[in-house]
């Protein structure tokens, strides 16, 4: 039976999983065609500035979703998603972006993946942890709490929450761009979970996400 920081961390992760399930199973009556301007950060070089979208390294247009997307649509009007270079998102994972567009069509939409947010948070010193240390639930807890706060705009997103900060974290797991024959598991914090505690929490996450999606479906 887990207790203390381990239990708290698991509960936070389960909450994030349920949030993603809610995002994946949301269904607006109408969905806008969607194109997203992609800000790609090389893994390992994400600074807090990049994570805040201040210094985009490379941009490009991704996800022309929808039959009617005009090829001449201006990129600067598109929602912006900052992600790691090695991160891949499924079409379903960007459904929340479409929902935001429906709700706040008059505002700039800037989102980042959890992996980018995590890189941003860990670019500097993390209290109680040296860079070479493995993660522990204790050292992870503040980061998980912050991530939870940053993605709490979903699903309710009352106006003040959305306008409070220009940056939001997309509440979905992503995966590493895999090779021709590999199918990497999705990761709730992005592709770089080379840590036993994070890997264990990822199992909790995927299990909780599966259960929540099946329950909603």
């Amino acid at each position, binding site marked *: 039976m887990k207790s203390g920081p381990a239990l708290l961390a698991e509960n936070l992760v389960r909450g994030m999983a349920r949030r993603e399930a809610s995002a994946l199973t949301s*269904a607006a009556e109408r969905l806008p065609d969607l194109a997203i301007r992609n800000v790609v950060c090389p893994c390992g070089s994400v600074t807090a500035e990049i994570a805040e979208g201040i210094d985009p390294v490379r941009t490009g247009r991704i996800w022309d*979703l929808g039959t009617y997307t005009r090829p001449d649509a201006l990129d600067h009007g598109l929602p912006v998603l900052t992600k790691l270079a090695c991160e891949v998102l*499924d*079409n379903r994972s960007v*459904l929340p972006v479409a929902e935001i567009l429906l709700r706040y069509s008059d505002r700039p939409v800037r989102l980042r993946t959890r992996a980018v947010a995590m890189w941003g948070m860990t670019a500097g010193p993390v209290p109680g942890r040296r860079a070479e240390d493995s993660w522990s639930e204790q050292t992870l807890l503040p980061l998980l709490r912050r991530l939870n706060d940053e993605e709490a705009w979903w699903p309710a997103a009352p106006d003040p929450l959305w306008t409070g900060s220009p940056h939001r974290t997309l509440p979905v797991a992503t995966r590493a761009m895999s090779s*021709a*024959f590999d*199918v990497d598991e999705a990761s709730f914090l992005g592709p770089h979970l080379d840590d036993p505690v994070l890997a264990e929490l990822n199992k909790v996450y*995927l299990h909780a996400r599966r259960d929540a999606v099946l329950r909603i*479906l």
Partner: protein
Amino acid sequence: MPGFAAHLTTLVALREKEAIAFYVNWNSPHNAYHVRCAAVAGSPWAPLTLREWVPTLGLMLPTEAALGLGKHLRKYPDSFRDEDELVAEYCQTAGLSAVAVVPHLLEHCTGPSVAGNDAHGERKATVFAGEAHIPGGHWSAHPCMSSFPSRSVTLPYPFSVELVASRCGLRILRDQSREPVEHPFNWGWRDWAPLIGANPRRIAAALRERTTAAFGGSHAELLAPSKEQSDADHPLNRVRLEVWAAGYLLGLDVSTTAWPPPHGEDPAFAASLRDEALRTWIISGLTQSDALACGTGGLEELVRLCSDAVVCGRRESPQRTGVRSE
């Protein structure tokens, strides 16, 4: 096409109480997939879902239904363009089922759309008969089903497997959801194939086995000719995995669906229909840049790959598991 009128006579005699579509667009969200399932199952009939529009390029209705449809359409202005959705609406109201013939008897022409549908991109048939000789008895070689046969998978909703923009995904038609039927947010197969009883890692492993067997232990492939680039990382090899996954899931789906076994079919003709269904899936499902990079030879290699994947998927036992890949 040869014998067009004679085919119509036969079809009417076989299904005099249903709407019969002679064409389904190659990338319509669900009905094109129904046609591909029928082609793989060896069925000359593809039951169509009325949750999607009924294809109207060529549609034959019983006389009474045609009159009823005319009356129904009079309620709408001529400027209303999506008449195919109104046909689906009418069929639902009138309790009329719709089926498509496999192969299709019509092909869409290229060029500007007279109905203002140019934004839909190229419109082509899912499986056009073309100049092929349709064997005598083809239409009666399979029992007439009015609805899509039942599936034995955990997912309680209709679904289709799709290949869009070089990515394979699942399109789920939830009852309570009011999602537009053609929305672009499909469920990626790597995470969600277990919903239909497939294990994503087994899918990828099966491709690895095929490749190893075909190329004597090397993973080098026809689509990765550049020696400077790692074969496994070649972008077209990612396309191969997506195409493989699509074919595998289609094969698995057909094997877990109660399609009645065909009788008296011509194996070569059946194989040609299946391959054409896969070919149009791939052509309509690749990004333009991937299609260009493949070229004609690469495309035919992908068709063979997809065909093998279908066979592989049909041999697979579905797993009644959750969503995890382990």
